[in-house]
């Protein structure tokens, strides 16, 4: 992650969490945390406990982040951030936690005084991990039309084109889903399974081959011993943990989106 992207990310993260950006200059950013965000990031439960029990005036911290070495930041006191620094990862985790569930409406301007209908979609962003002694991830973004059951990919990209709001706009009404969200999730899981099954899994075959080879070596090592010692079984277990191919699917985030019907949305 390049430095300017980190900068941009931080700016959006703190704004989205109602923290004022007090100062931003070349390569640095100073933000005033809210009480809520101080609790989230500063790890000082005793302070907050004390303030709350004594009724003291809360004083959430002001943080200075230095992202780039410049003339201005050289003498500045603050935390230096880069991709990989623990603080940035803490912020990443916080962003993930705070951006998991959503419900939005498309902001449509109906013509005249007619009411416009908004159709329900279930949107999911998903991470699929292929894992043995190596690992690879890929992301999927799926949308399920909760009326017709149509599934579209790259759903997130479509959403990015629209204007979305957390409250239902005037002169709009929502259509009740025919497919319940719970079974919608199941349909998408099924769809994901299909995608995975059609994928190339030579990685797993190769891992199985490595596993078998090492197992054969292990058996050879202890072949002259009738009663195998405990370490034989420990080693065997270790090999399974090391090589056994696994596929994990986890949902990054998702939610309900009420969108205007579009003739080409279902292709």
């Amino acid at each position, binding site marked *: 992650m390049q430095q300017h992207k980190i900068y941009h990310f931080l700016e959006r993260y703190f704004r989205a969490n109602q923290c004022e950006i007090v100062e931003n200059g070349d390569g640095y950013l100073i933000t005033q945390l809210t009480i809520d965000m101080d609790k989230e990031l500063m790890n000082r439960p005793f302070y907050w406990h004390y303030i709350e029990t004594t009724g003291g005036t809360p004083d959430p911290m002001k943080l200075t982040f230095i992202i780039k070495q410049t003339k201005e930041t050289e003498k500045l006191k603050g935390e230096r951030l880069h991709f990989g620094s623990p603080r940035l990862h803490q912020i990443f985790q916080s962003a993930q936690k705070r*951006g998991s*569930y959503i419900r939005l409406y498309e902001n449509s301007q109906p013509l005249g005084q007619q009411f416009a209908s908004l159709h329900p979609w279930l949107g999911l962003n998903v991470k699929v991990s292929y894992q043995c002694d190596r690992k690879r991830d890929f*992301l999927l973004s799926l949308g399920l039309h909760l009326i017709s059951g149509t599934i579209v990919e790259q759903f997130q990209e479509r959403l990015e084109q629209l204007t979305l709001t957390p409250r239902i706009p005037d002169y709009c009404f929502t259509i009740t889903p025919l497919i319940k*969200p719970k079974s919608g999730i199941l349909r998408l899981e099924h769809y994901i399974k299909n995608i995975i099954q059609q994928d190339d899994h030579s990685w797993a075959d190769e891992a199985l081959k490595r596993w078998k080879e090492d197992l*054969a070596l292990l058996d050879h*090592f202890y072949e002259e011993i009738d009663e195998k010692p405990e370490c034989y079984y420990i080693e065997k277990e270790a090999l399974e943990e090391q090589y056994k191919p696994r596929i994990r699917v986890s*949902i990054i985030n998702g939610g309900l989106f009420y969108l205007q019907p579009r003739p080409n949305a279902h292709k």
Partner: protein
Amino acid sequence: MKIEIEFDSAWKEGFLERLEQDGPWSSWDLYQLSLEVAQRLSVPDFYGLQAPSHLPHLTPLPHQLEVAKQVVEKMNGKAILADEVGLGKTIEAGLILKEYMIRGLVKKVLILVPASLVSQWVTELNEKFFIPAVQQKKSYVWEQCDVVVSSIDTAKKSPHREIIYQQNYDMVIIDEAHKLKNNKTKNYEFVQNLKKKFCLLLTATPIQNRIEEIFHLVSLLKPGHLGNAAYFTEKYGKTRALHADEHLKALVNKVMIRNRRMDTGIEWSKRNVETIIIEFSKEETELYNAVQSLKNISAGNQFSLITMLREACSSREALFVTLKNMLEKHEGETPSYFNELIEKINAVTKNSKAEKALELIQSINDKVIIFTEYRATQLYLQWFLKQHGISSVPFRGGFKRGKKDWMKELFKNNMQVLIATEAGGEGINLQFCHHVINYDLPWNPMRLEQRIGRVHRLGQTNDVYIYNFAVKDTVEEHILKLLYEKIHLFERVIGELDDILAKVELHNFEDYLHDIFFNSRSEGEMKIKMENLTAMIDFVDNLNKGGKTYAAT
């Protein structure tokens, strides 16, 4: 084979709950940020290294990156890292560990290292790799911390042993793994019974004496890779060296990587060593002789006498502090030699060594580190240099981390000279300086090596200049000429000596030297004893070099 697909259900539950309670819902901004984080943290490929992009401040050397890549891609995360000393095996191990942690394949880690290296590993992993490694101090650490560093001697003992066996480690790293060459030892058995999903064994000397050593080491990592014991003895038992058998060599190279200094293509900067012999003034000589004559009165023990001689070579201030302390502890009437010595100290009007140092610093006209053994000398030098318009920073092993960093920064940015009493293997890096004055010499080769190691290490771009001071016709000159120069200490690569001394098995080098100096009845006897000592070190050194060709790839 059909691979199981696991669906993580945590999200689903949270979602249904929110549907029921009509929220709370995230904002669109946070939702997008959350997805962006997932994109950043996902690993797009089975191959290649992710770790370097997480560690922008660390610049691993090409051979270190290559090792990490090979271990992850070709060796399935089980390997013996056997680079020659000084090539950065710790960096390699850190890179590999970081890579697996980023990929989410490793969480729980056990790192076993010699007791003297525990804190160094903890610091390096935290500072260089942002891996929250913790030193094992209390027994709950095993269970509660994910990355634990401990000595093997602690780990193998009850109750630690039992607790460790209950943990499910994803990775085990063992430094100085050649100590596991013998399969009959408790250490070996302890490691054998550890579950090793991913495992790194670090050693600069995979084979020291016998070919079976490599068999035991490999069998710990990957049992059966070299066959079983009976098969190995039959097939390779007569093999003298690894390179003598192409097949064995190829097999071993599948689980072991060994970079040699000359293969890495790294240009090491040159090290220039200069001995500067200093002549005492008449008064200084008289003081030194007066201390030496105490030997005949047999006052005090041998330790304090040798110490006083060494102090007399450093500064009258250093000697005075010791005398004062002795006097305070002394019961009964003050012996006459005390007063004589004090008189002799008062008679000294100049410090020949300090004058030489001043002259040298002025001619170098660049940053200089002066090492001395004594606090009093340190203070004196600081004062003395100041009189001549040279500002300096003091540095001691006892400084807290923050103060050390502060002093280092001061030296780097504002001052010409740093005066240190303790080299301390505590990871301060002074590569921006390349002149070192050994104002007086420690009587422990390792400490001397550590001093040099502060500046002459990978990453030093300038040639390094070492100036060794010794006063003519004193213990100092003997130790320099008869010991350090004889064992080629100043020409050696950092780390090499450690290996040698471990095998000489002299538990306390300094005591041994004291003994030679104190108990020799003549200079001839002392010289013979020193020759014996250097011959012994030489012998081990040669053995080592022989051993290294065993492991030659």
